[in-house]
């Protein structure tokens, strides 16, 4: 089961929880699972079938390039963080 860390501003939709342990083999499946458990959360993360442009996802400490298709392992740790640009 992967460990999904819930961003601070979404915790109010998740009963204050900051972590959810979920089944899934991709980031997309984890978000679907998160949305089933906490209605409304997935819409804050996903738009038009992809991660929202303002959000990046980190899997096991690595910024994932695969978006919703990014593979996750059974013990993966997943963080959603603001997407940023450099200069």
């Amino acid at each position, binding site marked *: 089961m992967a460990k999904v860390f819930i961003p*601070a501003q979404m915790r109010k939709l998740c009963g204050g929880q*900051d972590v959810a342990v979920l089944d899934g083999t991709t980031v997309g499946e984890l978000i679907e699972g998160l949305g089933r458990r906490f209605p409304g959360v997935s819409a804050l993360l996903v738009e038009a079938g992809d991660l929202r442009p303002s959000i990046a996802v*980190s899997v096991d400490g690595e910024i994932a390039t695969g978006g919703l298709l990014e593979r996750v392992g059974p013990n993966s740790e997943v*963080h959603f963080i603001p997407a940023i*640009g450099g200069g």
Partner: protein
Amino acid sequence: MATVTNTSNGTYKVVGTRPLRPDGVDKVTGRAKYGADYSLPGMLHGKVLRSPHAHARIKAINVEKALKLAGVKAIVTGRDLPEGENKSVPLGEMSVNPRHLGHNILARDKVLYQGHAVAAVAAVTPYIAEQALELIEVEYEVLPPVMTVDEAMASTAPILDPELRNEELGDQPTNIAKHTQLKRGDIEAGFKSAEIVIEREFRTAMVHQGYIEPHNALATYGSDGRGTIYCSTQGPFEVRGMSAAVLGISPGSIKVVPAEIGGGFGGKTTVYLEPLALLLAMKTGRPVKMVMTRAEVLRASGPTSGSHIKVKMGCTRQGTITAAHVWLAYEAGAFPGSPVAAAAMTVLAPYAIPNVLIDAYDVLVNRPKTAAYRAPGATNAAFAAESVVDELAERCGLDPLDFRILNGSHEGTPHPAGPPYKRIGFIETCEAIKNSAHYKSPLKGANRGRGVASGFWFNAGMQSVAMVHVHADGTASVVTGSPDIGGSRASCAMIAAEVLGVDVDQVRPMVTDTDAIGHTDVTGGSRVTFATGMAVFQAAEDVVRQLKERAAKLFECKPDEVEFRAGTFAAKSNPSTSITIKDLAKRLPRTGGPVTGRAAVNARGVGPAFATACIDVEVDPETGKVEILRCTIAQDAGKAIHPSYVEGQMQGGTAQGVGWALNEEYVYDSQGRLLNSGLLDYRMPTCPDLPMMEPIIVEVPNPGHPLGVRGVGEVSIVPPPAAIANAIYRAVGIRMTELPMSPPRLLKAILARRAEDRTSPAAAARA
């Protein structure tokens, strides 16, 4: 354990050496072509009419008189652009809102800053185009300007964009485009366990990147419906995508040719003139060239945000930080998109703090839309946090570097945004400064002080493509789509030479246009030597793989029976049967034809960067002028491919940080008109303002890159303002909380302190 060194090339033949730059001769002989050097037959000249008001409704625009002027070929206004979608869409490294982007290129119903483009003219000469601008009649309804985040966040503030909403305020109009919050641990419990708590408030001014070359664009549009834009940019693919989004055409119909670039520092990652030149070319059927003046660059291109920051931090008497609460509000300019989320993620990144709460607000104000600037958002934030860290260290009676080392992030520390760090070199940068000759030297004399500060930047990976072509004489070309703003051509050539086992002068690097290479994200985020370098490394390996096949044909063996070492292929079974790359290159036509290696990466394994600076200052107590006496900066490069270029980046970033700290600021009058739109009044540091900046390259290899590379282009700008503020404190006993710490501002603080000393018995006793 990390290597703290001035770099050696270790086991490498080319990497870590300091060859002459491949673009050097072209640049010093004037042969290098910058954007404004391009001209085409039949070319028209474009000029932009800009708003004199910071905030106004456009009631009418009349171009009739201007159009009648002989030599004027076309005039466009905001109505000539399609109304873009009002939502963020991904575009390479960044996301853009096509409506906001379009409205910034040409205002539609409102002007939102002085200098906002209102109309553009194409004429046969630049002088006629300028005359035409004077004949365009614009009727404005002037509105009150909103110039600071404090004004903009007030409930009574005039609203810049009536359609703007944020997720927290629902349907209520607002100037706050976004609130980002990061939270870990229990902030209240963290402060409860603190024995020393410092709470301070800071302000920083809007500053410009200060690239010497103004924005420029030359566009053509053919009867085949295809356009070409020649311009100075950090991101040709971004110029293509953004111009297409603004004009409502297919990105594939535009080719962007990146010129040599005269500085960018993040400011050339977006578009201003490019879609306008193309639109005017489409209207006239002739090439159109546009070049900004310096005043236009300062008024109307994207500086970085001014900010208001509050920091509360607590620690034990032994110096362990237990909690930190940071509140940040950043000026986005006229449209959403300040780097405040990056600021939130960088502000506490050097430290392992168990209880953290960070609130960050992206706020619209009547100033130009901000653009990226070297470690966007991080410098303002570090000025605040590192000043408080310095104060905590002092209260604990600890050396400021020891305090940082005690609390420093290391492998496994969770980043404030969540994920734990992999191998990082923050503590090593502190140790490098601590062990430096500078830090060990005494600093004597009145009104002199020494300050240190640290900084963090993420660095980036993203998409890059590289090709390596082998030529008949054994030389090679390295082709990428990454404009070279800091020496990346040299790095790419060196990486290819290292893999191919040849001298670096046998490899010629070049940057090509958007039709000639696969999608390559912007030169930004300190990513090129990391990600494009990774693509070059793999493309060169692809060449070696193919050449092994060719050698195998000559040796009459299988490819896996060929070994490659130091530029020579040999049969494993008979090492005396060998051939150099140079000789093998001659045999390519008869062994299968040309060899081209290629690689396309969406690079993973980014290694973040840390830097720590030590700066000595002397304050003139009669004028408030600060002189930088000595400056040393240590930065973790992972592996320095070309140490001279790494040092150049460190020195350049530090110089910009010094300018940001001491003099640079946008000065507006009460009506929102910029008062210092030239480089005489917008005071950037020049050689007399700066001592030799001593770089210490720290090499903690990034495990995510085949050569250990991290990015080096940005983080060195982050520590200087805080280091200088901390040095000023030690020089004259005053903690400055506002940037720039210019002579008038510091003198005011010195005089206020003197007045306080005269009137307060406690202060007098302290004195």
